[in-house]
């Protein structure tokens, strides 16, 4: 299921996610102090290039990581191989990327 390239893509995406997860949780804890409102969140994220890059990178890393992880599970549990397995991995990657990108755009633009 994995050759060295996919293995490295999964390790590197994990490496990218680690600090982003910590940053995400830290900001969550900071943000909920004294109540949480939509306006407060959007006030921080809208029009912010920093948060666009932060969550954009996050979504990209998650999409890569999850697509490869699910590829291994699909291969081992359902015995998928070759083209069907590659199509499945690509579909997961694109779906997660689209959903994530939509969310990132929604909170950083408009």
């Amino acid at each position, binding site marked *: *299921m*994995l*050759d*060295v*390239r*996919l*293995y*490295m893509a999964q*390790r590197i995406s994990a490496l990218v996610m680690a600090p982003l997860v910590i940053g995400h949780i830290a900001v969550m804890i900071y943000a909920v102090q004294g109540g949480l409102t939509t306006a407060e969140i959007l006030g921080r994220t809208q029009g912010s290039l920093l948060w666009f890059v932060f969550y954009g990178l996050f979504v990209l890393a998650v999409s890569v990581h999850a697509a490869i992880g699910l590829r*291994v599970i699909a*291969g*081992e*549990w359902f015995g998928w*191989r070759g083209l069907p397995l590659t199509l499945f991995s690509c579909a997961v990657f694109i779906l997660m990327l689209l959903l994530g990108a939509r969310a990132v755009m929604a909170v950083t633009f408009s």
Partner: protein
Amino acid sequence: MSVDENSKNLEVSVWRGDASGGEYSHYTVPSYSNQTVLDVVSWIQQHCDATLTYRFACRVGMCGSCAMTVNGEPRWTCRTHVNKVIKGDKLTVAPLRNLPVIKDLAADMDPFFEKWVKAKGVHEPSASRHDPMVAVDPQSPQRMAASEGIECINCAVCYSACDTVAANPDYLGPAALQRAWTLVNDEKNKDANSVLDAVSQTGGCHSCHSHGSCTAYCPAELNPMKAVAGLKRTTAFKFLGKRR
């Protein structure tokens, strides 16, 4: 061998069949002290059914031919004492998992050894007899890494214990990869890079989930999981080095 004072019997279920299927047959075998699982199987073949097929050679844990599944776990049967693995008075003996069955307890080892070759686990000399001998420092870290794996007896116990092999028939498995790691670290082997490339393909070392069943069950007390981790580390650095 002396008969136990209370001369108990063992209730032994032995898998009988071939590649097309089979079922367990049941035998009652007298219990002796210091009796190995291989002794039990041999007793059945000698006293109950001469057609029972199984494999052994050395009976002292050297040749690696006697491995079977005993009470659900892979074991070298010539060195496995019945009293260590018995559950009540019941013993179940089956062929090794993850390999095709030839007949009864004899598993077909071909896929196991084909994967050794696929992992480039074949020694290719770096020099001929006309060249001067390469000096090998037994204390060098590289040589020590190679030496850790050389006592493998090719018994396929680790291969049978590995859940990743069970889930992914393409996976080369712990023994072949440990052999590859040994050769990567052997200065007398010609081309470490070609070994690293061989184990970087689909089904290579990166499919290992580090469960450690291989290391837990290896009767020679080797550590194939550590060898596979060594391959993962080395191939990862090689990958980064290439693109730098």
